[in-house]
């Protein structure tokens, strides 16, 4: 065996609905018209929430906000493939996925208003709140995917992170441990080409991010992340595998069309041309044309749907504002431990009396 090729790996890329509106008939998932419309609606809902949120932030009503604009297909397509009991473990830009999994929009706004109420997940909802430290949450998803397996349940955890996150040791540890423990976990990496200002070539020498899976000995696959049908298809297959103890990494190729967060100014580090180019490749537009071509979406349905979203979000904003008015700052003392410690109680009393340090 002097010189021998001992292992070979292939990274495959999948697309179901192309930019030219061609469809891979073999791969196209069999979804009812209602399901197809639901996918569309969820993307629109997220887009609209983002637009309103950016405006609210500009008016000082929200804190730093990270829009998902342009990434809706990657998130909604994958979230849609999840089943009851499955867990979503997001990063900080996953409102599309969270909305699709049932998080009410006012909670997303509360989170952006700096309120823990927005990170409060009533038990059994199968969701984790946003995770700010980049790349840390995939480990939680591995713990969940393993924990479900240990308890003989078939629920999976689907976790989201970005291209930049793949440089963090934690993400690698998560992939690797998932492989060792056959964790019921799916990793969705949204490669939106930027980590704040940093492009992929300054993040890694790897040609694809799907190949990060090779190091962990798990499956990796790439999908056109602006193709909601492709994402759904790939995610559904991955989730099925994960349910059977085979973790999968999905790299969804997409583009962050908006700013990193409302604190960011992309014009400092990228050309407007590029943004224009990607505007044309918008995932919602691509899917809308598909639905229209097939007569699933007409003008009437569209405007009904837009109106519904508009009023839902308006309601959510009202609810968020109301909730924001009467938060109790003393809660910080109540939720640090199950029971307040004596020292905390002392500090709490001082806080209430506003006398002690």
């Amino acid at each position, binding site marked *: 065996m002097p010189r021998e090729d001992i292992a070979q790996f292939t990274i495959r890329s999948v697309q179901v609905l192309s930019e030219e509106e061609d469809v891979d008939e073999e791969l196209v998932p069999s979804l009812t018209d209602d399901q197809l419309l639901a996918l569309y609606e969820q993307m629109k809902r997220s887009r609209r929430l983002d637009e309103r949120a950016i405006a609210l932030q500009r008016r000082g009503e929200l804190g730093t906000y990270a829009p998902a604009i342009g990434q809706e297909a990657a998130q909604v397509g994958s979230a849609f493939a999840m089943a009851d009991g499955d*867990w979503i*473990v997001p990063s900080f830009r996953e409102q599309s996925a969270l909305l699709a999994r049932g998080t009410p929009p006012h909670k997303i706004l509360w989170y952006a208003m700096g309120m*823990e*109420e927005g*990170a*409060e*997940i*009533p*038990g059994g909802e199968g969701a*984790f*709140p946003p*995770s*700010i*430290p980049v790349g*840390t949450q995939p*480990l*939680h*998803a*591995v*713990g*969940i*995917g*393993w*924990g*479900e397996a*240990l*308890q003989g*349940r078939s629920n999976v*955890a689907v976790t989201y992170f970005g291209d930049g996150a793949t440089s963090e*040791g*934690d993400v690698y*540890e*998560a992939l*690797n*441990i998932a492989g*060792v*423990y056959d964790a019921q976990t799916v990793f969705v990496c949204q490669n939106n080409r930027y980590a704040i200002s940093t492009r992929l070539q300054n993040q890694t020498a790897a040609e694809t991010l799907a190949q990060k899976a090779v190091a962990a000995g798990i499956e990796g696959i790439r999908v056109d992340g602006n193709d909601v049908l492709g994402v759904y298809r790939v995610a559904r297959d991955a989730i099925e595998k994960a349910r059977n103890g085979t973790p999968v990494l999905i790299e969804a190729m997409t583009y962050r069309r908006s700013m990193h967060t409302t604190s960011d100014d992309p014009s400092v580090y990228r050309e407007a041309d590029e943004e224009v180019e990607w505007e044309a490749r918008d995932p919602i537009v691509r899917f809308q044309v598909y639905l229209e071509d097939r007569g699933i979406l007409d003008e009437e349905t569209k405007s009904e749907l837009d109106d519904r979203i508009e009023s839902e979000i308006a309601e959510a904003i009202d609810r968020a504002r109301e909730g924001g008015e009467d938060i109790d700052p003393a*809660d*910080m003392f109540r*939720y*640090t*431990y*199950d029971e307040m*410690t*004596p*020292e*905390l109680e002392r500090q709490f009393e001082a806080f209430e009396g506003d006398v002690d340090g």
Partner: protein
Amino acid sequence: MAEQLRMVEAVRETLRTELGRDDDVVVYGEDVARAGGVFRATEGLVDDYPERVFDAPVAESGIVGIGVGLAATGLRPVPEIQFQSFLYQGFHQLAQHVARIRSRTRGTITCPMTIRTPYGGGIHALELHSESFEAGFSHVPGLKVVIPSSPAETKGLLTAAVRDPDPVVFMEPTRLYRSFREEVPEHHEIPLGEARVVDSGDDVTVIAWGSMLREALEAVEDVGASAEVIDPRTLSPLDTATIVDSVKKTGRCVVVHEAPRTAGLAGEITARINEEAFFYLEAPLERVTGYDVPVPMFAREDDYLPDSERIAAGVHRALDDG
């Protein structure tokens, strides 16, 4: 039925009991299953509970981080970090998630995880096998920090830690693992947050934990003073009341720890005493601690570690001053 056990055996028997008592307890960590842990603290557990005792990859951030997820599914993770310094590899998971998941989700997701980890000097181990970072962990709100000082105490405190609804960093002094046996009751739980008055006395209060407690007791005997010796046991939350009551009585106090002095817990304890017993103090509070240097390799370790002699000198100063 009480048994004569060493500390490392007390750890093992406690884990065995808890694995048996509660199906949700999961033990994992580097070399804890097949080999039973590098100190043999988990020896045999995998034989009795093969479905809940696991070897882990060499990935401390992973070990800590997955605990957050395990807990979310309803389990009670009890990982081992092979040596306390390697918990630094997972410090971000600890501070960013383990300690905060309850507060940021308003109690809807919690992390009742107990991270066991051997710590401290005195066994001539390799570099970075002898650190004591209890002050750093105690500075992270949301965590509890516990250090036992004997086999029976280990049983009582580890039992409480595993059952606690909050995350606990449970630091086990390697030096005491095999140094002595004592009677350990089969069922024994010591509430977290309660200090132990080990010895009563009137002239000076001496506070020490982990392997320093024995040094302190020896020092006190050497000095021949009437000393009240207190083992806080739980460093966070600290039982201030017991300490303050004692100092109100004695008016003098020596705090001992292995960790470097600066920003160590002796400072915190001094501050609490200062705040609550200032007018009872007859002399400056004394600190007998590790020096502000990286714990040296073991040829110089004995010179670094506080011992009964240095503690005795501290007690003398506390008694003589003022």
